[in-house]
């Protein structure tokens, strides 16, 4: 164990860790609303919305994420769009992640009894309000645990950005290894840092399962949710 080498390379490793956190956060923040609208579009009665959303989701889930990243990083410049490595990695990961998240969110929406929507329509409640007041309060507690499971997979997936020249945690660990020839120290540090992020997400998951799901579950079951 060479702690002196760890100390020497700690600033770059920490930088890589911050980039991994930033990348994960940006990818989740951008792909969640996209995935939400994709999930709504896949449930739509309009074929013009349903079909493109279905194709998007099924095509991008069928491809290796790395291939999508290569498209963003290597093929976009062919069309005159030059992105920085971080932007290309973000774009590629958002495209892939939104397709996977859309399926998780759709499963949550589909789990709500369709009678609820018919009842809202019959009562003359507009689409968006019934979505906000009736549908989502019931769908969110169902969709939240699989959403966070997917978020953990997405965080792990950001390691792929190291293959398109982003200096994330994996890239910095590999660089430190190739300079120092000390693999164990840096692999262990990288693994521990990833485990810390994912342990936090897993803790959030069990917290939401116990608290938010229960609270929303009760609100949704009572008449108060519909009254307003």
């Amino acid at each position, binding site marked *: 164990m060479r702690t002196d080498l760890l100390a020497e390379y700690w600033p770059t490793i920490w930088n890589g860790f911050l980039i991994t956190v930033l990348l994960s956060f940006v990818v989740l923040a951008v792909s969640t609303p996209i995935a939400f609208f994709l999930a709504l579009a896949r449930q739509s009665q309009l074929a013009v919305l349903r079909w493109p959303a279905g194709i998007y989701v099924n095509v991008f889930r069928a491809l290796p994420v790395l291939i999508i990243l*290569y*498209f963003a990083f*290597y093929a976009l410049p062919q069309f005159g769009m030059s992105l920085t490595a971080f932007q290309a990695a973000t774009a590629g990961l958002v495209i892939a992640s939104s397709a996977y998240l859309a399926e998780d969110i759709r499963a949550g929406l589909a789990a709500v009894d369709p009678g609820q929507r018919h009842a809202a329509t019959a009562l003359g409640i507009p689409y968006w309000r019934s979505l906000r007041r009736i549908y989502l309060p019931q769908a969110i507690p169902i969709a939240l645990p699989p959403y966070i499971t997917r978020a953990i997979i997405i965080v792990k997936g950001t390691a792929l950005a190291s293959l398109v020249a982003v200096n994330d945690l*994996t890239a910095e660990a590999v660089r430190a290894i190739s300079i120092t020839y000390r693999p164990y120290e840096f692999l262990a540090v990288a693994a521990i840092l990833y485990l810390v992020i994912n*342990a936090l997400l897993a803790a959030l998951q069990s917290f939401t399962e116990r608290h938010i799901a229960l609270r929303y579950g009760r609100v949704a079951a009572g008449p108060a949710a519909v009254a307003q």
Partner: protein
Amino acid sequence: MNLDFGIIAVVWPALLKGSLVTVQLTLAVLICATPLAVLVALGRDSKIPALRLPLAVFSAVLRGIPPLLVLFIVFFGLPPAGITLDPFPSAVLAMTCYMAFYFGEVFRGGLQSVPPDQWRAAEALGLKPSRTVVRIILPQTLPAVLPPYISHATEVLKGTALATAVAVPELTSAARQVFVVTFRPFEVLIVAALIYAVLDGILLTLQYWGERWAARTGTSIRF
């Protein structure tokens, strides 16, 4: 921007070769990880803490860090320990390590779907534990396990793209080598994507048949 798909007529042998490596890698990982996963599933619910606890730790760690990092751990970590492997076996080893635990969770769910009475009945009839597993328990888990097994197999297929990072000449790596030389990334990547889609399609067809079989067998197997 002018696309020139004529380039594919020149580079297809390289892509075909890469596709074959991708298929080999997928099959090798499935063949190695599946029996290990059964052992992992049995061990995770074992009554012996010395077996159960280390497996729980391995499962949490290997499923909590990026698959790419597992590849690097094998690729960079083994040579200083005196073990030098070629890229292909080291990729198989790394992917087997984490897939055994992902598949292990699938099989665990399947094992838990078998009523515990079955174990006790087999014990009462004097069957050896190994025979009980092979003859009584595993056949009953198949209908529950097959659909998620195949959907994880598509994850293996897509995951083989990571092996490009440790210099395995599979499809993604072949595509990259080709477009770096020809400066036609879009055309080459589209063809690579189509090949992945076809391979995925084969697995999805298997899943479709598997699910139909499971729906038939799953109901008839109850006594």
